[in-house]
């Protein structure tokens, strides 16, 4: 269940990330899975009760922290084995470093994590396309209490700012949307008795507290001429500082 990478499938068909075509693909992919109510259980299903988002850190290198609150219904079996898939479609202007994510994977933080789309680490925003990160995480949940239980899962994604397009204010604002979330839980050791939850970005959007915005410093266009003139003037002065002593240098016969 949710073994395949949805983003890999998306980027095998599309070159550039587009929200509308991604939503279409997500619907197609998920229609293959049917999330049935477990037999014998009345109402309760897995629900998303809260989504907190924070941007942690300062400067060009930060962490996007997502705390996902799940309500898990009680089951007749003691232990549930669950899988969470989070798809974070990054806005233009920020990127995730694939090598850094590999490092996280080797440290056992996640079952799988990958970034797709434009993963160039060097180009500025104006020359880059968007990218997206898919995270797969496994967790176990004890359901023997007999009541609805709350579970909070925190995911930290390290991100970096690209060089932003020029703006007179000196700062470029990058706003984050909400992730697409897929959760599936089943009895430990069996995949038959399964409950699942699908919360696309448009739905999780309603649950978030604040809009996360990253203010990235950027160049100011009105300085262009002054900067160019003074740069070349300084280069010229430096040239003279070197050339004059060289020309006046006296070599012994």
């Amino acid at each position, binding site marked *: 269940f949710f073994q395949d990478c949805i983003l890999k499938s998306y980027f095998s068909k599309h070159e550039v990330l587009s929200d509308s075509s991604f939503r279409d693909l997500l619907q197609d992919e998920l229609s293959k899975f049917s999330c049935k109510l477990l037999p014998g259980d009345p109402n309760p299903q897995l629900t998303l009760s809260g989504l907190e988002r924070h941007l942690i850190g300062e400067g060009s290198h930060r962490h996007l922290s997502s705390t996902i609150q799940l309500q898990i219904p009680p089951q007749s079996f003691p232990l549930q084995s669950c899988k969470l898939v989070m798809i974070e479609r990054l806005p233009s202007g920020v990127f995730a470093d694939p090598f850094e994510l590999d490092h996280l994977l080797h440290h056992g933080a996640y079952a799988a994590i990958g970034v797709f789309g434009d993963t160039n680490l060097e180009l500025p925003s104006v020359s880059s396309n968007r990218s997206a990160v898919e995270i797969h995480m496994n967790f176990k949940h004890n359901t023997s209490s007999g009541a609805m239980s709350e579970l909070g899962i925190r995911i930290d994604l390290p991100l970096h700012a690209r060089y932003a397009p020029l703006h007179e204010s000196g700062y470029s604002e990058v706003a984050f949307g909400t992730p697409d979330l897929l959760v599936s839980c089943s009895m430990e050791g069996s995949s038959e008795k399964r409950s699942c939850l699908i919360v696309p970005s448009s739905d999780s959007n309603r649950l978030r507290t604040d809009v996360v915005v990253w203010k990235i410093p950027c160049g100011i266009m009105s300085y262009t001429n002054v900067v160019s003139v003074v740069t*070349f003037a300084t280069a*010229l002065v*430096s040239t003279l500082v*070197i*050339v004059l002593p060289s020309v006046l240098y006296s070599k012994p016969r």
Partner: protein
Amino acid sequence: MTAKAPMNLRRLLIGSAVFRLALILYGEWQDAHMEVRYTDVDYLVFSDAASLMASGSSPYKRTTYRYSPLLAFLLLPNSVLHRSWGKFIFSASDLLVGYFIYKILKQRKVAEDLCLYSVMVWLLNPFTFTIGTRGNCEPIVCAMILWILICLMNGKIIQAAVWYGLVVHFRIYPIIYSLPIILVLNPRYIQLGNGMEASTRYNLWTAAKSMFSKERVLFGLVSGGIFFLCTGLFFHLYQWEFLNEALLYHLTRADPRHNFSVYFYHIYLQYGRQLSLVEKLISFLPQSIVQLVLISTFAQDLPFCFFLQTVAFVAFNKVITAQYFVWFFCLLPLILPWSDMKLKWEGLGCVGLWMGAQLHWLLWGYLLEFKGQNVFLQLWMASLVFLLANASVMAVFIRLQRFSPIFLQIKVSDSKSGVKSQ
């Protein structure tokens, strides 16, 4: 390497080797236990490229690998023996540079204690021992440049040419040394075989014979041949990926991200805009003028010429990263014995000015990158100050350097092959 190295140099080299080994081991510990790695990001790039090569793929499948395939080849044991193999190679090259510095100065008849102090300027420089142990490949380039100098000083033109072709393939920037080397291979100073007969006649024919002397033509052909052979071989193996990443990228690089270069903000503000031919030429002009003036004035004192050219090349470049500084740090010990600069206060003043300008830039860089403050203007001004500091330090060096050509003029009466090193 014929004479037995004296006791003090041996102790210096052994001590430096032990210290570098300790740093490599410490680096392994820091990488495993701390958030911030000791190892340079570039080293991970080289290692990944080497593993790709080991599995039969192109090293250029690794993004940001922009070096010769030779480097990945050198690091193949990283995946077979130990991941720190490369660091050992780079640190060993760094020690070799120390040995070469001693060898060159001894051949130029510098006193023993001055030789050792000069070697210490390289081996004990914190910049030097961190760069190799962190996994940066520049010490290999430095060792090759110094070996080329040794070959030239000993009249081994073909050997010098082979290594020169290789080093230009490896790193490209040493191309700036081509003109001074050609100039120094003046038949009045260095001749192969029986050399030219002395002639009192000076006409167009003798001038042409002198300009296109056997030595110069040989050097040009052999080094050019090696360069094109390497380029051709790797193009055959890796196609356009090799040409684009290892060669063309460096020639056309214009990174808008902040770095020490005075041009970074200009490039960022103009990014995406098509520059006119005049604008493109203007940015090349200061670099070209400085290089030509330095070469025409100092070519005969080859180590000093190399040193000044390298400082200028780095300072006027469109992109400057800290690893480029090693390119001239390895040449600095070769010129100190002929400098009239006193440590107090000219020497310390130069060090203070250069380091101070760098630290000033780093402070603004930290505020921009790690605190997210818009200090682009201040950072750009700090880079202007850094360029002026580099130029001023160069001016002081020029003013206080005793000109010492590496070759003396061959006397007309010498009939045998003549290389008379000074």
